[in-house]
């Protein structure tokens, strides 16, 4: 599904290479986790895939179901089925959460040649999904993420994911800033979306999120590369021994 080959990425503003040949394939129906120390390039990878400005791809490719996404605008990637759950969801004062989501859902439907969803159908759907995430209707009315707690912001990300039904979901440090209860709620939301045909790439610093979202494959990233790939036991190894041993071992 998602295929990343020999991806090299520089920061545009400064002469700095962040990704140095990332190789990664996520198959449909699988959950892959990327773990790694701070500054290893995990978040950069998620931003580059989503199409954020400020990065320059110098080599390599990234395709989604065989379609090259790196030359696409962010909205085109989204319409192709790529979704990034942000580490720091952005606050947008003045734009209502509901307006935002309805605009997004309908923009994606339009891009796929579908009719817009009626206001009634939309309302019914979003209320149902919000309820599953224990989000009250007040959160839907408020401006996007404004005044939301850390947990509410992350739940709002998962709600968007549930509404947009992407085929490839990237979760960037979704556990950061969450207490145990909130993490469980978010993980339940993600697990509910696990299904055949949908891939997940879960970026995390700690193993604890992976207790709740069980990965099929775990990758360790360091210094802009995937240095080791294994099963769920790899995450436990990191939890126990830290990254230093692994990095040393590979070096």
């Amino acid at each position, binding site marked *: 599904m998602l295929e990343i080959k020999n991806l090299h990425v520089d920061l545009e503003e400064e002469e700095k290479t962040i990704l140095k040949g990332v190789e990664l394939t996520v198959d449909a129906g699988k959950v892959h986790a990327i773990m790694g120390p701070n500054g290893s390039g995990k978040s950069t990878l998620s931003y580059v895939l*989503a*199409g*954020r*400005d400020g990065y320059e791809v110098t080599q390599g490719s990234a395709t989604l179901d065989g379609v090259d996404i790196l030359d696409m*605008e*962010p*909205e085109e*990637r*989204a*319409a192709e089925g790529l*979704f*990034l759950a*942000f580490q720091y*969801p*952005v*606050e*947008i*004062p*003045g*734009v209502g959460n509901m*307006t*935002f*989501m309805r*605009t*997004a859902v309908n*923009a*994606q439907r339009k*891009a796929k040649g579908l009719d817009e969803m009626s206001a009634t159908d939309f309302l019914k759907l979003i209320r149902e999904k919000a309820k599953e995430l224990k989000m009250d209707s007040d959160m839907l009315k408020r*401006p*996007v993420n404004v005044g939301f707690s850390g947990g509410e912001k992350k739940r709002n990300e998962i709600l*968007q994911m549930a509404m*947009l039904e992407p085929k490839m979901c990237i979760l960037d440090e979704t556990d950061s800033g969450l207490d145990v209860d909130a993490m469980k709620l978010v993980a339940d939301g993600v697990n509910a979306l696990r299904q055949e045909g949908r891939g997940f790439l879960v970026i995390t610093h700690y193993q604890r999120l992976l207790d709740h979202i069980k990965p099929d494959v775990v990758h360790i990233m360091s210094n802009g590369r995937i240095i080791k790939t294994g099963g769920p036991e790899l995450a436990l190894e990191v939890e126990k021994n830290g990254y230093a041993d692994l990095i040393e071992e590979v070096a």
Partner: protein
Amino acid sequence: MALPQVKQDATEARLAATDRPAKGAAWAETARDAALSRVRSMGLPHRRDEYWKFTTPDSLVQPDAPAAAVHVSDETNTFDEVERLHIVFVDGVFDASASDELALEGVNIERLADAVSTDIHWAKDVYGVLELRGQDPVARPLAALNTALASDGVVIHVTGKASKPINLVYHHTSDTSDAILHHVIKLDQGADLTVLENGPAAARFNKVMEVDVADGATFHHVRTQGRDHERRAVTHLFARLGEESTFKSFTLTANGALTRNECVVELTGDNAAAHVAGACVGDGDFLHDDTVFITHDAVNCESRQVFKKVLRNGARGVFQGKILVKPGAQKTDGYQISQSLLLDGDSEFDAKPELEIYADDVACSHGSTTGAIDEDGLFYLRARGVPEDIATNLMTLAFLAEAVEEIEDESLRNIIVSRLEGWLDRRLG
């Protein structure tokens, strides 16, 4: 001090270009004469005047109106869906056949020409009077010119609660029309009126509205200045507020080569409130200037100035806003914010916020910001599949929301929002 020759010449040339209106009653002729000598002693604005530092007044001052093509639009009038009494002016001339009958419960409406030919008329105490009060400490010569030369307009006396809003509609049909309108509105104690204004009016438009708000009266004003690209306008809104009265004015502007909206409010009675707000979207060869002067001369009054501008493709925005708190105007609560969103590097916003306070127990704040669109927010919206232009519109609307929310009436606010959405969807084309 004698005027510089260049200013004197420009002033005389302008005065010579417009005929003096038909002779009215003695009081009206006195008011016009006085205004004429004010114009001559102040001289019309010049680009080197401090008050016109950011907005070149030449096109407003030159003898004839610069030509402005009439903008052809399929848009309906802004307030068509509102149950209102509408009064139509075409290129600055009252159009009786297009207007409703000038009759409204709780309100007496006359044409200016009729009022000024009546020997004894209440308008004597307002016409040119509030304009004159607004000439100090800053000269507003184009308003005095209006008082001296206006031959049309409406004179409205509100004795109770008006049963519906009055909508002044200004059509522009001639490329060279040079319109001068002067409206006078007097609200008796406890009276209540909403005035709506829309339309581009003329190739060049000089409008004065004087509003005398008695104790406990309420005046709401909502206007749109439409997408007529080449029109020019200078408008003055002078208001005097009595005790516990309320004055709220909101303006939405899109395009127009030049717009200078001055609003001069004097809070003369205790516990009065004045809110002045504006939202504007400018694209291309466009200059919009909001100049506001609010004087607190009573105790425990509140004033708000909220102005937001979105500019692109070389559009320019100006804000000059002042809060003057006179000695003794204790417990004043004054607030002023002016912000611009520049969608590209070619656009420009100049702001001159001022506070002048002579009382010691007041709370006044002001702020002004200029910024680009929030790239993080834009990326966030796009990452969810919202195309860049729609995302920009959403963020633009969100930016303008604080000003639009100053409109108290929900249905009017919704009309303004949908008008704004329509303009943004058309990319102001």
